Every structure is written in C-alpha cells, then in structure tokens.
C-alpha cells in the first residue's frame, strides 16, 4: 500500500508549509520553494494547505500507486503520463491501484508539486513533514526520495472534490523580474548599490539549491564591512557577502546569518523565485509595502 518510487527523479522531497516555531532553537523552516503551487496541488484534491505534497525538481520521478488515489500536479509544466496516457496538469485525476505515473520532459518552470488526496503521510517531526536536507530532518528519513521507497498516503478527511481552479499561476521562462522591499540592513549599502540592484540582471549560478540562490552580476557595495553579528534571515532576503554578489535565501536557509541583507523579495513573488533554476536570470524592482500586501491579498491564500 502507498506510493512506490520506481525512479526518484533529480530531487524529489516531501514538503508541507514548513517547520515554524523553532527557529529560535536553530531549526530551519524548510517547506515548498513554490508555496503557491503546493497549495494549489492540495486544493485540487480537497486537502488542507498544510497536507504534505511531493516537490519535484527539474527531472521528475516515476511512481507506482499500490492503492487507489486521487492526485493533482501543479507548478512547473511537465509532460506527465499515467499508464502511458498523457494527463493534464492542474486537474484532479483518479489513479487506480497499480497505475504508473511518469514524468517526461519539462516544459516550463523548475518545480512541480504532486498533491495526493489524504496527503503524504510520513511521520511529522516538530510538527511538520517538510524535508530539510542539510539537517536530515523530516520527510522520508530527512532525505530526497530514492528508488524503491514506499510513501504512505494519509487517511482521507473528506471526499475529494474535483475543483477547477480559475487562476493557473504564470511560470517564468528563462528568468523573472521580482519585487523587493529594501532592508532589513538597507543602511549598510551605498545609494549606488540600490541603483545597481534595480538596473542589473543577475544570473542564478550552479551553486544554488533549496538553501539559496547564489547570483552572479554587478557587485553591490557595502558602506561599512560585510560582517554583521548574526541576524535573522527571512525567506527571499538578499544577503550580500564581501564579494558583493548577492545570495537569495530560500526555503532551506539557516535561521540566522552574518551578512547584511540589502532587500527582501515580497512574499507574493517568492513562488515565482521558486520556479527558477541555475542559468535563469533575475531582475529586481523595489516596490512599496502597500503593493506587496496587495499582491499577497490577490493570491487568496486563505
């Protein structure tokens, strides 16, 4: 019973909304890189947003369903087949026991979310099923899926409803312009750094993962040194070490960091950042808090 992993794909992990409440004890939040698509995959199969999904990265898995299930796939567009027949994204599908789900070519975006009615039922750790790879916490033994793993499906809380969603979020194609709010350490940077930040195009380097995206582009100058007494590190913060090359802090980031942060990506644009991959570009534009909150409201997360 459950979901058998025939091929794990490049990096497939169990994720939920993250391990909140323990950052002061040094426990990273983790969670989906694209929370919007994670929520959509859950909504499509009638799950609450906190149910665990599978986050698929760049190359998708092959899965064998050993029991009947209802699934939906949201986020990055892949060619996906069920028992050899292509199935659409963003739609709930009935999956009879014995079915094989196969991810083929990736069309757009970087990360897909497989929502399963009842959720992926691995044991919760500190209140969350999210996998944090660096500390080997949560998910399936704290690691990415491997061939022959068996994933339990949770009990079904309510009948799955086939929900047709109105808005399918647009996926970035090769790069994205992301809105930021200055700070928290805006005063540690020159005026010139802010001009550079808004005029330049940065590339996501191969040294990027779920912890953060190391960017390459025109350096951002500090006013003083680049060292800080360790401070809190929100998702989307642009941390700038002495080299001046920013690092975007993502889902698996540590709970604190010692480099000044020039700006922070707004919550509504973080899901777009989560659909980028090494080789993609990012441009930044500064917006107002009112615009950030308006954009978040339009996501309709509640």
């Amino acid at each position, binding site marked *: 019973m459950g979901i058998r992993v025939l091929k794990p794909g490049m990096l497939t992990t169990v994720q939920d909304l993250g391990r*909140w*409440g*323990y*950052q*002061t*004890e*040094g*426990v*990273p*939040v983790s969670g989906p890189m694209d929370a919007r698509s994670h929520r959509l995959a859950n909504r499509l199969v009638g799950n609450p947003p906190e149910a665990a999904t599978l986050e698929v990265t760049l190359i998708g898995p092959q899965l064998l369903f050993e029991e009947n299930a209802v699934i939906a796939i949201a986020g990055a567009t892949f060619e996906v087949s069920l028992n050899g027949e292509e199935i659409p994204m963003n739609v709930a599908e009935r999956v009879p026991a014995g079915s094989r789900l196969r991810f083929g070519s990736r069309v757009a975006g970087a990360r897909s979310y497989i929502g399963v009615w009842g959720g992926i039922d691995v044991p919760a*750790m*500190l209140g969350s099923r999210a996998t944090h790879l*660096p*500390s*080997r*916490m949560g998910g399936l033994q704290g690691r990415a899926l491997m061939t022959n793993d068996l994933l339990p499906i949770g009990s079904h809380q309510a009948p799955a409803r086939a929900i047709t969603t109105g808005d399918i979020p647009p996926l970035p194609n090769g790069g994205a312009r992301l809105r930021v*709010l*200055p*700070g*928290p*350490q*805006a*005063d540690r*940077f020159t*005026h010139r750094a*802010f*001009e550079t930040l*808004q005029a330049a195009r940065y590339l996501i380097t191969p040294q990027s993962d779920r912890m953060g995206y190391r960017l390459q582009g025109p350096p951002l100058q500090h006013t003083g040194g680049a060292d*800080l*007494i*360790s*401070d*809190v590190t*929100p*998702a*989307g*913060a642009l941390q700038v070490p002495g080299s001046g090359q920013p690092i975007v802090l993502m889902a698996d980031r*540590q*709970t*604190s960091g010692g480099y000044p*942060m020039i700006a*922070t*990506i*707004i*919550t509504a644009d973080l899901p777009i950042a989560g659909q980028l991959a090494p080789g993609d570009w990012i441009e930044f534009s*500064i917006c*107002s*808090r009112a615009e*950030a*909150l308006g954009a*978040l*409201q339009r996501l309709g*997360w*509640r």
Partner: protein
Amino acid sequence: MTDSRRAARPIVETDDYRIVMAGDSAVVAEFEPRIDPAVNDRVLAVAAAIRSAALPGVRDVVTTYRSVGIYFDPLVTSLEGLIETMACAPDRPIEGSASAPAPLEVPVRYGGAGGPDLAAVAAFGGCTQADVIALHSGVVYRVYMLGFVPGFAYMGNVDDRIAAPRRSTPRVRVPTGSVGIAGGQTGIYPAETPGGWNLIGWTDLKPFDVERGDPFLFKPGDRVRFVPV
C-alpha cells in the same frame, strides 16, 4: 531610486535600538551590536512580551545575540500592535518561577581524540593544556542564541586568554558532541557537520535529540558550566 534607502527607514529608532521591516512578513528589533548579557536580556524581554501577547498571525519569534525577529502573516497580524508590544517591553525578562536556576552542567572529556585542538588553543594562550581546561570550565556561560544547525547554542564569554579564532581551514566533518571554541564563543556540535571551531573536548550530552520530551537541551538565556570528567 534615491528614495530606496529612505523607504527602508526604521519604523522606530532611539539611542540604543531600532525596529526595521525585513520584507513584508517579518519585523526585527535591533539593539546595540554587541555580544553583551544586558543587550541579550533586552532581546529576550521583547521576545517574551511578543510571545505572551499571543497576537493573531504570529508564526515565529526568533532571538539572536542582539536582535529579535518576528515572522507574521501580514494579512492577519496588526503591525501596529506588534510594534507597540515590542516598544513597551521591559528592559529585562520578568523573572518567573525559574529565577536564577543553577547552571546546567555539561560533563566534558577534554583533550584526546575528542579534543584534537586542545594543544593548539594552549599554544594560542601561551599556557598549558591544564590551564585551558581550568579557564574553559571555570566560567558560567550564557546561551546567547541558537543557530547554525538545530540545537547549536552560541555561548559566551570565553576567557580572552583562550579565545582562539576559528581554524583557517574548517574541518569537513566534526563529530557530534564536540566542544569547541571560536573567539569569545564556545559551543557543542549537536550533529555531525562541517565546522571551523577549535575542538577542545567531547560530551555525551545531546544538545538536540528528537526522542527527548524537549528536544532542545539549551534555550536562549540559559546558564551553562562545563565540568571536566
């Protein structure tokens, strides 16, 4: 574009602290940039005030040496309410029933295979290895903050004479339970990780253990003493 930094002006700014936004869903109160028990006390007092206010939508309250970060849902939490609670917090945590508890004692086997840098720290201090042990175990440390990995407590302040800086080349693998020094800080590795601290000993206490009722041995503000065994 020249308004960028003005847009990021602190919401509150006084002589010794300020409150700044960190994106749209977090706010940070920063006190003086010093590693100092009095500063850290103020941090813990603000965190305690926020926690006891139990404002709707607050997701996480995180303390560091000299700052407290509050993560919240901006569509639910009143930012004004948060800032007022932060600004009205006392200077020190209100002492509860656990006032001035005895320091937590950590048994340490100094030197040997578990403390390969004991000699190097002695050389740094121009003293004997026995002196390093006496100086390291002769102080009650404060847990200023946790970070790096789950349960890793940054403690201070290490006596200046043995406050050896981080190794120039970090180790790829530091065993769980290793006790290290990095400048004025000391700490215990809760998991096997890479690390650059000078390893002077080893303890079988587990700073992080999910099987334990409370997985975290240390909390910010705790007092700790190392005991040679």
